[in-house]
């Protein structure tokens, strides 16, 4: 880069053409004062200029490390900044996830982008407004507290001749001050833009085919790469074959057990990867048979057992119980199965590396790529470009590692896009979880004790962010050590049972270089733990012949929990009665309703599913989903509804259809035929979302909470309809038929 200030101005141009207009004056006037040096280092988080810039025409550019995964968070950021600054939302552009331009906010995960990530943006906008009003006061010769701001113009309400626009006051120049956190932010009752359904800023271009996704990035001199994976984990590369007879091939790259091809065109790279003769060793897979997975998980000795929460004397209460109830549940391997296979472009030279990626963790990937390539982190520049929607650690970072190795090998920019089998077959998988729950009740039907155990795999190898080379698949294949983590999983619930224990256990699982590596997939493991918990609550209510909503309300003491449960029930027209429904017909199509509730962090949801079960075929159709959702302050109601609806569809798909299949020759779920997901004819007839707005509370997360209670709501509805209990996901026709055959009759 020629000059830090010039480069920042040039880079700003990408976020809005207007910004480039003041590049030269700014350079000549204040070039020597550039505090940060984009391109060589990360913008300082305490500098106001790291978070926002205002052009001569008043256009605002906001900089954030939080990136948009397709849920509209960029629009929400624009609303928050615009409201705090008193500018039209249309005048705000967002620059996301660039290690040279945006401060490190830890990347995206856990539905925290607005709850946590927007806090410094709001603060910087408030600070900027205070500075701008002060500048206007000086210029206009009036006291700052007599001025007001509308549409980016500071004015004196009692004197129409006195006004100055943000563009005039600061346009193109830096603030050069620290964000102190002392500027007052607006109270919720002052919001004009936050809380309204501003249309998403990205949608018009997406509908027109004019949007730039990561797959659209083209770099001059770019070659195309594809990767060839070992057939099973532990297979060693014997021979990588030759490029002879493969048109357009620039290089076959083999390094350890990593194999890739680089070709002049994308189609040549695809064909070369397909036709290259690669020989691997043939080890035995380190897995149990798929049919034995859950048995194997329960038979393994845990490496970690941790009591995650405890109240009262569980063992004593259990001994004194008149009756105990217990059940086990199982959740399978699931794939992110991103719509667009992962894609990255790497330009690695002796000057450093530039990586274009749809990673959820740009600053963390910067370190991972540096480690993978043997560069200093400062020599790596990661530029996030929006990709296909992602829901955690899918293949994006791994594809970046592939592109980096290939580009380093050939000394030219290389674009890698995974094929469908690379994505579905080799993405880090959402892990299986098995759950065991036991409850003790007294003679009057009161719950005395609740003992919950969730058992999952170590997360070794695939943390949420690729901070080391060994945390990328390519790194593992070239022999770098994976450094993982082990965090026991735990169910989130707020039931006030007198005695309660929640235990998380970890059993070992081979992770390195495996297509069954496990990683975060939307609301990591909570769909599984809530499936166990909320199915079991339903089983308790049924055993005690109590309405499932009434049963929950007996033990939910937090008013927000109770309110969200009541909101869903009221909207759905829930009529209290125990499950299963009376007068179940043993044949034909029957219907039922099921309830589930869950907190996720501070966000609370309650989900109701209504289903039709064809008892002859085992087919389940979800006719209606109702979800009540309390995530504190709502930034954009329509955007929130859209994300909730999509969570409900995706989680219905995971509940009814999704399970990664594997065997001695590897993972067999490699495309949409072998890993089917929900399609339009199977989508529910109706989805209804009840938003519980809490302007008195901060905004909590909303990207994934709505996903966590769908499976138990559906399982509970199947039970209500048929008296058959589904304790293993997905609820395939085979499993439903088996459960129907197993049901005790008459039900309950």
């Amino acid at each position: 880069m020629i000059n830090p200030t010039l480069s920042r101005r040039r880079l700003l141009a990408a976020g809005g053409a207007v910004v480039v207009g003041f590049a030269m004056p700014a350079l000549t006037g204040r070039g020597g004062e550039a505090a940060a040096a984009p391109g060589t280092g990360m913008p300082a988080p305490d500098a106001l200029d790291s978070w926002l810039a205002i052009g001569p025409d008043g256009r605002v550019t906001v900089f954030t490390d939080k990136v948009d995964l397709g849920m509209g968070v960029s629009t929400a950021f624009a609303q928050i900044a615009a409201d705090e600054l008193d500018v039209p939302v249309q005048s705000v552009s967002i620059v996301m996830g660039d290690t040279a331009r945006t401060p490190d906010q830890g990347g995206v995960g856990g539905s925290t982008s607005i709850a946590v990530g927007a806090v410094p943006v709001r603060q910087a906008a408030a600070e900027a407004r205070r500075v701008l009003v002060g500048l206007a006061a000086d210029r206009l010769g009036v006291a700052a507290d007599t001025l007001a701001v509308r549409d980016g113009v500071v004015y004196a309400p009692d004197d129409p001749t006195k006004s100055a626009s943000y563009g005039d006051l600061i346009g193109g120049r830096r603030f050069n001050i620290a964000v102190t956190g002392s500027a007052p932010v607006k109270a919720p009752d002052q919001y004009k833009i936050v809380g309204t359904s501003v249309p998403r800023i990205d949608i018009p271009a997406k509908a027109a085919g004019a949007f730039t996704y990561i797959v659209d990035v083209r770099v001059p001199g770019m070659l195309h790469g594809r990767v060839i994976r070992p057939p099973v984990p532990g297979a060693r590369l014997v021979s990588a074959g030759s490029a002879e007879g493969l048109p357009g091939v620039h290089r076959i790259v083999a390094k350890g057990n990593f194999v890739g091809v680089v070709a002049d065109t994308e189609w040549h790279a695809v064909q070369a990867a397909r036709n290259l003769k690669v020989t691997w060793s043939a080890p035995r897979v380190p897995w149990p048979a798929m049919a034995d997975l859950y048995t194997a998980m329960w038979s393994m000795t845990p490496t970690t057992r941790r009591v995650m929460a405890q109240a009262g004397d569980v063992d004593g209460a259990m001994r004194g119980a008149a009756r105990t109830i217990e059940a086990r549940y199982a959740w399978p391997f699931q794939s992110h199965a991103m719509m667009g296979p992962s894609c990255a472009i790497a330009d690695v030279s002796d000057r450093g590396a530039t990586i274009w990626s749809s990673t959820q963790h740009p600053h963390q990937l910067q370190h991972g790529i540096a480690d993978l390539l043997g560069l200093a982190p400062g020599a790596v520049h990661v530029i996030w470009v929006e990709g296909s929607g992602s829901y955690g650690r899918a293949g994006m970072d791994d594809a970046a590692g592939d592109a980096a190795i290939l580009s380093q090998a050939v000394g030219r920019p290389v674009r890698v896009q995974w094929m469908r089998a690379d994505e579905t077959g080799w993405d880090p998988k959402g892990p299986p979880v098995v759950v065991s729950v036991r409850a003790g009740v007294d003679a009057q039907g009161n719950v005395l004790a609740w003992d919950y155990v969730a058992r999952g795999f170590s997360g070794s190898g695939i943390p949420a962010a690729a901070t080391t080379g060994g945390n990328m698949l390519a790194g593992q294949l070239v022999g770098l050590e994976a450094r993982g983590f082990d965090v026991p999983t735990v169910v989130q619930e707020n039931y006030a049972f007198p005695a309660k224990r929640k235990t998380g256990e970890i059993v070992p699982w081979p992770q390195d270089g495996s297509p069954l590596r496990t990683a975060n997939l939307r609301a990591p493991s909570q769909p599984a733990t809530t499936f166990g918990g909320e199915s079991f609550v339903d089983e308790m209510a049924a055993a005690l012949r109590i309405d499932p909503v009434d049963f929950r309300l007996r033990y939910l003491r937090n008013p927000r929990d109770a309110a969200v449960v009541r909101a869903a029930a009221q909207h759905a027209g829930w009529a209290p009665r125990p499950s299963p429904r009376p007068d179940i017909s043993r044949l034909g199509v029957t219907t039922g309703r099921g309830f589930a509730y869950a907190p996720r962090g501070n966000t609370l949801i309650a989900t109701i599913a209504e289903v039709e079960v064809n008892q002859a075929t085992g087919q389940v159709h979800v006719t209606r989903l109702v979800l009540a959702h309390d995530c504190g302050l709502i930034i954009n109601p329509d955007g929130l509804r859209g994300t909730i609806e999509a969570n409900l569809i995706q989680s219905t798909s995971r509940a009814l259809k999704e399970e990664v299949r594997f065997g001695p020759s590897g993972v067999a779920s490699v495309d949409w035929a072998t890993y089917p997901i929900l399609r339009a004819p199977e989508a529910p007839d109706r989805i209804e979302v009840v938003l519980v707005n809490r302007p008195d509370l901060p905004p909590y997360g909303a990207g994934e909470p709505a996903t966590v209670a769908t499976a138990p709501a559906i399982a509970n509805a199947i039970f209500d309809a048929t008296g058959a209990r589904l304790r293993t996901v997905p609820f395939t026709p085979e499993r439903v038929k088996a459960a129907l055959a197993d049901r005790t009759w008459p039900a309950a």
Partner: protein
Amino acid sequence: MSSPAGASPAAAHPAAAAAAPSPAATIRLTVNGVVHTVQAAPGTPLLYVLRDDLALRGPRFGCGLGQCGACTVHLDGAAVRSCTIPVAAAAGRRITTLEGLGPAGRLHPVQQAFVDEQAMQCGYCVNGWIMTAAALLARTPNPSDAEVRSALAGLICRCGAHMRMLRAVRRAAQSRG
């Protein structure tokens, strides 16, 4: 390099596009009303030519297997999967992509309905839904809900924006009706 639509000569029959690598040929394609001349092996899937040679962004790679629809284009008005059609088979036919679906500079009613309904999450798949729905409404202007769902059954949306996309198609049908 441009000439009016429909001026392209008859191209090689698709059967001539063998699976084995074949030398590049000169192929003329009519895309969004503009004739382009490209150098490509006749068996190259149309998708790669549209994206990599003609720099179009609407059709996207999703599976390369014809299973998801992200690559959908119109070939003489019919929605087809450009990832499985050899480029040679598209020569001499009218190719329309998402970019060229609407009248010059304007959105097609289906595109507009997707904007109005905010009918997407990430939008990576949305090309397939819009192109398939537009082809459906061209032949069935007022489809029932079941007809819409059935016509869109071959598409994948991983984020799960189905409900809004179905609403958008109904809205487009009503706006045209």
